[in-house]
């Protein structure tokens, strides 16, 4: 199956413009037991989904530019007024006002620390991260939430200071474009494609 032929999408005039193949069909195979009796069949398939980011698109676009965006509720009448959300929330979870986008890159560079972490050798199908994965949950000064990410350099510890790094050279435009490294890590130690932004 050639990847050139794999489906690509553009939005033009508010409509999807599709090019290439979005699914590949393969024949079924019988499943038999040791007596040779039919028990079932395999159902192979390969499908490309289309997924729109909507109001979160600026977050994923900016990762590729080395920026970490959050959002903030600026409704003066909201209980959560002034709360900053990372993960980026399009609307305030309390008043449902449209949040204001704020650049959290500097805050993250100064004061992010590991709230908790986990190291795992196990992954699921379609994983592209190198194993073991070191999950880190990062808290920032002045942010009401705790962001999940991964630490490709160093060993995690609770309370450890970390800074964000970004897949700016060949971005995937997904959350794996954002990672964290211990404060003081050198640019030369970063994984391929990553920079400090």
């Amino acid at each position, binding site marked *: 199956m050639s990847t050139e032929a794999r489906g690509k999408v553009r939005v033009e005039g508010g409509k999807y413009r599709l090019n290439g193949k979005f699914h590949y069909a393969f024949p079924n195979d019988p499943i038999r037991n040791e007596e040779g009796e039919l028990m079932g069949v395999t159902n192979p398939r390969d499908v490309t989904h289309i997924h729109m980011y909507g109001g979160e698109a600026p977050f994923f676009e900016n990762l590729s530019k080395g920026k970490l965006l959050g959002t903030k509720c600026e409704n003066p009448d909201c209980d959560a007024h002034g709360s900053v959300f990372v*993960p980026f929330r399009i609307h305030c979870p309390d008043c449902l006002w449209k949040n204001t986008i704020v650049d959290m890159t500097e805050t993250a560079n100064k004061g992010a620390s590991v709230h908790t972490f986990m190291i795992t050798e196990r992954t699921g199908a379609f994983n592209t991260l190198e194993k073991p994965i070191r999950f880190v949950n990062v808290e920032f000064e002045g942010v009401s939430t705790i962001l999940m990410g*991964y630490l490709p350099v160093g060993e995690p510890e609770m309370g450890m200071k970390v800074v964000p790094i970004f897949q700016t050279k060949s971005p995937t435009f997904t959350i794996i474009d954002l990672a964290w490294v211990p404060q003081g890590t050198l640019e030369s130690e970063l994984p391929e494609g990553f920079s400090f932004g």
Partner: protein
Amino acid sequence: MITFSKQQLKVPEMSKPVYLVTGGMSKFGRSIPEKRTEELVIDSFIEAAEFIGKTPADLKRYIHSCYYGHFADHFGDQLLGESVIHDRLGLDPLGNIGIKTGGATGGSTLWEAFKTVASGYSDCVLAMGWERMDEVPTDEGNHYIASAADKDWETPLGHIYTGYYAVMAQKYWQVFGKEEESFRKTMAEIAVKNRGYARMNPHAQGPMKITVEDVINSPVVAHPLRALDCCLMSVGASCAILADEKTAYELTDNPLLVYVAAGSHTLRVADRRDMDIPLLPNETPDQYKDLGERFPGGDRYPGFTGFLAARMAAYYAYRMAGVVDPNKDFDLVELHDAFTISDIQSYEDVGIRPYGEGRTYVESGDCYHTNPYTGKPGELPANLSGGLIGNMHAVGATGIMQTIEVAQHIWNRWAEMHGDDKKWEAFGREKPADWTDLQVKGAKRGMAISHAGVGSHVTSTILVHPDYQLERRQS
């Protein structure tokens, strides 16, 4: 700091009492290649009918609407799988609906069934849950499960749900477990206990006679969790029949009062915001003031260590049923032991122990059928079915299985349903020579907790023998 309104915290009011009439379950296994899902569903329905001396056709005549718990369309590879089951059970033209709330699907199915009877819409309903997780290889199964996390913010990170969960385990382990060897052993004890009880259960997929050392030496999944700390992935079905008082007593002379309540919390753990601890009837506002001093790092609630959804399910359900102290008011519980450490966390969320002290429920011996330190009956035996670690986690069926297991104790029919040689034989399983009757003597009340993933949904199902109702106080 976020708060909840008076309206949101209202104790649920039901128009009429609801009864559990009967229930049943299939065999559970990691794979059951010789049967289609509907065959397992029918097995569980027949068990439920026979339990009250009815034929399936007799029992079906009473049912007015149907509630189907099936979590993962991906695993089933069949959208509207509920309709397939409904048709194969021959329950047309009754209204039916599918329910999916991750790991809490079974409990949520009971919740819907319960409200339907309580409202008067139906006099008698079927709650049926199932899951089939054996039709993809394990790594694709892991991806499917990880698809229940946020697909933009979490799933691409390893496609491994355990990873999203284990960060919470790590936090609890360091803050409340203080990384103590003794705490590690307490976790392992739960795995030993639940797998040991599973040996007495012919339905169970994961019976094992093991030691604390076996658990601690099993392969690391995600530190501090090891393979034997984790629950099973299963195939199987379980069902319950709920009815109003009149119908319940037409069907059986011994129905149980049932109460179900539900809570929720953010799908992404990352979105959790700080709040005051919502208190259960056996707690006081002062008792958690020094939690952060006693457990440095433990002052953020729920942080990554508490399950607000479980706390709220208990908050509503205890007040509905008149429960003040779960240790005194319940005779047994079935908890959602997805991992040994999350089992400990839930002791605190549901008020069996105060926050920070969950481990003492195990260390005191209170959680055992027979307290190993005193030789007397455990104060509040937990997961005598074997739980998710020893019996099964066929997601959509789990919360229903737990409820039926509790009910069989209150009905004083546990030994009949677990000791029958014919059942062991029919399931192709060998009854152990040291098979032990785990019936909780004189059980009158109990609870089952059904819990989704990192805590997005939790239900509390309380069963009460009608002669032993608790007085409902105003909270």
